[in-house]
């Protein structure tokens, strides 16, 4: 790894990882807004952003395929950091302290905390299901190949998975606003040493090991 550590900051995400993340993020937002537009009439006006309601219907599944590919690369890159450990269970039991910013005595967090890991697996599950159900309901190309009951089930599952992932991503975005110093990791690729020690001490130890000659 070509990591570059200055006295104040540590590399967390490479330029290609950032690019990959933001392609996923942009396509996700487009999908969320175009999908919500067709989910509840109160949000139908979002269709105007996509060039009208018919264009929204046409574009949504193609954007979905782009996001699936982009997310797959991201998942392939990060999956090994996302296995839940015993520490994570303790961390989750003390989620009340976490949201109250009371961090004393919380178990040591590695590259990702339990919340991030759970979101990762939620995304793996929902995005896979969204792709599969999305193909089943994709008109005019594929929907007519499936029995109508399967199409109906796919429509419901697609909406449920979308709901779960949208709520998950709202938490994800909010966490980046709430935990100061996080956004820089995905924008410039770096975090401060103090941030790493505070939020991901296990990871901090690993990446700074090589520095002690």
């Amino acid at each position, binding site marked *: 790894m070509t990591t570059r550590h200055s006295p104040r900051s540590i590399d967390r995400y490479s330029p290609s990882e950032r690019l990959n993340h933001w392609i996923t993020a942009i396509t996700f937002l487009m999908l969320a807004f175009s999908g919500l537009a067709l989910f509840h009439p109160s949000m139908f006006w979002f269709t105007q952003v996509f060039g009208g309601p018919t264009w929204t219907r046409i574009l949504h599944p193609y954007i979905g395929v782009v996001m699936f590919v982009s997310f797959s690369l991201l998942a392939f890159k990060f999956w090994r950091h996302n296995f839940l450990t015993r520490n994570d269970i303790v961390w989750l039991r003390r989620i009340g302290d976490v949201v109250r910013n009371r961090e004393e005595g919380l178990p040591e967090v590695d590259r990702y905390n339990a919340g991030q890991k759970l979101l990762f697996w939620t995304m793996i599950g929902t995005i896979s299901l969204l792709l599969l159900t999305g193909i089943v309901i994709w008109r005019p190309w594929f*929907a007519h190949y499936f029995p109508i009951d399967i199409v109906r089930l796919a429509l419901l599952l697609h909406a449920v998975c979308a709901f779960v992932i949208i709520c998950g991503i709202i938490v994800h975005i909010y966490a980046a606003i709430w935990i100061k110093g996080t956004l820089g990791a995905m924008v410039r690729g770096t975090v401060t040493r*103090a941030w790493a020690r505070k939020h991901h001490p296990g990871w901090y130890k690993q990446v700074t090991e090589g520095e002690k000659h």
Partner: protein
Amino acid sequence: MALQSLDIVRRSATTTPSPQQRQTTEVAKLIDVTKCIGCKACQSACMEWNDLREEVGINEGSYTNPHDLTANSWTLMRFAETEENGTLEWLIRKDGCMHCADPGCLKACPSPGAIIQYANGIVDFHEENCIGCGYCIAGCPFDIPRLSEKDSKVYKCTLCSDRVAVGLEPACIKACPTQALVFGSKEDMIEHANERIADLKERGFENAGLYDPPGVGGTHVMYVLHHADKPELYNDLPKDPVISPTVGLWKGIFKPLATAAIFFTALAGFFHYVTVGPNETEEEDEEKKP
């Protein structure tokens, strides 16, 4: 197309009342299957009035032609051979939109005003608002709407809403030579059906009855069947049609609840920020420890 814009009882993907100041009589088409001779005049009249033409197809061993409803063929005579009462029966059913009182297509449609239900009971598609998602196809318990390959819009029987709006009967009714098809107020049609059913029962069809399925709130196209106990004999006319529970869940409780939950999740984030506040890293520590 809407000529009767003051009597809309329901409009797809719309949460406020539609223009409904004008009250009209509920209408119905009664299809007396027992009087139908399978001449297909109704099919021709439908295409004629709506100015559509079906492609010339091929014979696959049945009189049913074309083989299915299409974006051009909004009504179709379906032929079935069965052995009821120990004798061969040739059952012919004119298939097409049933104009449900509780239309699954309208419930499923995400595009405001693409599907309209008039006070007279007609459920009409306004294709200029159709976005081609096909949700109505999933919503329909009768497998009626057809997505056009030409323009990706969905088409089906309008019950000649344009003709009915100006006091004419639907084109198929006008063309029927045996009065197997009649049109009028729903009340009158039920009365007429009951006379027919009494007559059929007298002639040995003990299970003759009216098909006006309550599962979809009743329909504005009704059948008189000789075997009302077995509607599936007539090319799988559903026995107890209802909007699929899957669609009901998706477009019923889940839609408003999920929308509210998404809104409140975002709101919870904001309230967390203004109460608990951000989690900041003390950067001063950093300067001390190199």
